[in-house]
């Protein structure tokens, strides 16, 4: 049966609280707010950079900041995260400097993933944030596997993974939740139900009454939460994390939200989605809502807010400037990391390419474009 929608922050003429506010310190609340703002500003800058052709691609997260930042906030630094491509706030929350994310988006010589994937496909081992890939849902069963390993090793840590509503139709959603149920793995599954999979609305994705109800098929609790209510998302995640850590197994959280922007920089949502829908959801903006809450609680003055925005903007500005400065990765990186050690075949292919580049026989434009 579909559970009721969990809400914490009542809204005049909007949401009405069904759950008590989680006990978070003022510092925690301010941190949450800042990360959400930074995520939003990163989005705005990155979309511009993409339009200017400075970076090749981008995936907007606007409207889903509470959904992924709020849930990730329930984790400890040692826990593992398997985000989707629409969750930049998770890396930010876990202390990854914006500049490192910018290097990845620029796919430059300073990119820790060596310029090998499209923008937003981050990997930050120091944050236990596992490499993000494009294929939908593949991270779900991997997250379960890591959680199985933790249980086998009696490691008290837990795993959280994020994915969209479309991902629930994929094979790896099914195996991921089924394995987690069978092995009672310490894993929290967060479905960011933003109503759309590119152009396909939720009703084209599943006939079930909700995403949360799917949890029953795997013998785990399913929770439904207002994904634009950062405190509600946090509260639900905190409970699921506690449950997992206590050895009681996995939870599926359906975070009901909305994708304000296009699917990606390659998409034009107006071709399939009524703009009025966006306007309606913009009124439920998770950052505005949290801001109203903090203001009410006297935790955020207009001046504070300005300061937060300014410091985030500055951080972004210097990150972008740093990323702009870097050149492309070296040609030799093309052949590294296929295996721990290069094979004879890869060495030969590298030598041949280097030689061709040095002799300038590959078509113009390439020659000298990349450091060897």
């Amino acid at each position, binding site marked *: 049966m579909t559970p009721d929608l969990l809400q914490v922050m009542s809204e005049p003429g909007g949401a009405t609280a069904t759950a008590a506010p989680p006990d978070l310190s003022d510092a925690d609340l301010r941190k949450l707010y800042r990360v959400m703002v930074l995520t939003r500003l990163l989005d705005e800058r990155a979309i511009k950079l993409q339009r200017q052709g400075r970076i*090749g*691609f981008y995936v907007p997260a606007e409207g889903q900041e509470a959904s992924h930042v709020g849930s990730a906030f329930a984790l400890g630094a040692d826990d593992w995260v398997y985000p989707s491509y629409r969750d930049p706030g998770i890396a930010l929350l876990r202390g990854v400097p914006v500049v490192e994310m910018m290097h990845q988006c620029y*796919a*430059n010589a300073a*990119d820790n993933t*060596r*310029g*090998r*994937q*499209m923008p937003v*496909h981050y990997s930050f081992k120091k944050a236990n944030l596992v490499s993000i*890939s*494009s*294929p*939908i*849902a593949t991270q779900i069963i991997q997250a379960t596997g890591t959680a199985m390993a933790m249980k086998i090793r009696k490691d008290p840590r837990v795993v959280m993974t994020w994915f969209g509503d*479309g*991902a629930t*139709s*994929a*094979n790896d959603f099914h195996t991921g939740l089924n394995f987690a149920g069978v092995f009672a793995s310490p894993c929290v599954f967060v479905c960011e139900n933003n109503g759309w*999979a*590119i*152009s*396909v609305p939720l009703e*084209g*994705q*599943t006939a079930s009454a909700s995403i949360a109800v799917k949890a029953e098929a795997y013998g785990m609790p399913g929770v439904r939460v207002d994904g634009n209510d950062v405190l509600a998302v946090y509260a639900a995640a905190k409970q699921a994390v506690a449950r997992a850590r206590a050895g009681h197994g996995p939870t599926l959280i359906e975070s009901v939200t909305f994708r304000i922007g296009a699917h990606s920089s*390659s*998409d034009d949502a107006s*071709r*399939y989605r009524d703009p009025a829908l966006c306007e309606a959801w913009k009124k439920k903006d998770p950052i505005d809502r949290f801001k109203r809450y903090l203001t009410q609680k006297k935790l955020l003055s207009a001046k504070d807010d300005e300061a937060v925005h300014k410091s985030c903007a500055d951080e972004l500005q210097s990150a972008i400037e740093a990323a702009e400065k870097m050149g*492309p*990765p070296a*040609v030799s*990186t*093309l*052949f590294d990391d*296929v295996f721990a050690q290069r*094979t004879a*075949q*890869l060495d030969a*292919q590298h030598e041949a*390419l280097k030689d*061709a*580049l040095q002799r300038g*026989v*590959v*078509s113009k*434009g*390439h020659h000298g*474009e*990349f450091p060897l």
Partner: protein
Amino acid sequence: MAVMTLWEAVNDALKTEMRRDDRVVVLGEDVGVKGGVFGCTGGLWKEFGGDRVIDTPLAESGIIGAAIGMALYGLVPVPEIQFGDFIYPAFDQIVSEAAKMRYRSGGEYTCPMTIRTPIGGGIRGGHYHSQSPETYFTHTPGLKVVVPSSPSEAKGLLLSSIRDPDPVLFMEPKLIYRTLKEEVPAGDYTVPLGQARIAREGRHVTLIAWGSMVSICQKAAEQCAQDDIECEIVDCRTLVPLDEATILESVKKTGRAVVVYEAPRTSGFGGEISAILAERAIEWLEAPIVRVTGFDTPFPYALESLYMPEPGRIREAVLKVWNF
């Protein structure tokens, strides 16, 4: 004749056949209202309705599995896999089921369907929006594999594929979706499967390629012509069934062969072509059979332009076999 890009030619072929045969249905992710991420199914949903142009849930194995069930029933499905890189979740349904249905049922049940999917690099798509997975399917008996090299080729081959009684992988080189324009015959127009095409005549060296690599070979051939080396280009068109006769005839004429493909070098389909030549034309060969290919790495992002075969590397190979 109208001038079209490759994606427009695909769209035109789909409309042509859907008007001609009401058993033809299109299904896939975002193929309906949105018209596909590359526009190939644009306008179909409006014209033919949601019963025949179906936006599916996000599951490639579901798209192909459902298409098999439709084909067994008697429809003529044309499923789309949004990117060739995302065909792997459907690998089991394609390889274990579609490919073997006719054989295992003694011919009782068949799967006439055409799986359309964009392949290849050149659009800065990185690992997962650039791969050329055609070889996997050429190693799977029961599947036909078609890769068009131009807009008119695409229309003619797609219509033949949809009308073919067996499952066809129709792989569209996205590098030339928009960049290549040419006149495309209006209305019904077919190019038979299993016949290669001499894309350029020449006496000295045979270049063997398919899909987007054919136009890259054209550029290389022009460069070589400046050194008075006349390249002949064989456009395979269909990898399965392969027109070995045309390839052998050309190589026996020139005595020199360069095979070009974009996929990783090891076990790429071009290796099969080398093997065929080494088995059936070795007496005619005056030089090694050289391959110009992608590298044995995942498809990169920043260094994409170095990964893909380009005229310079092909010219190098031609000079090598010519001066051997």
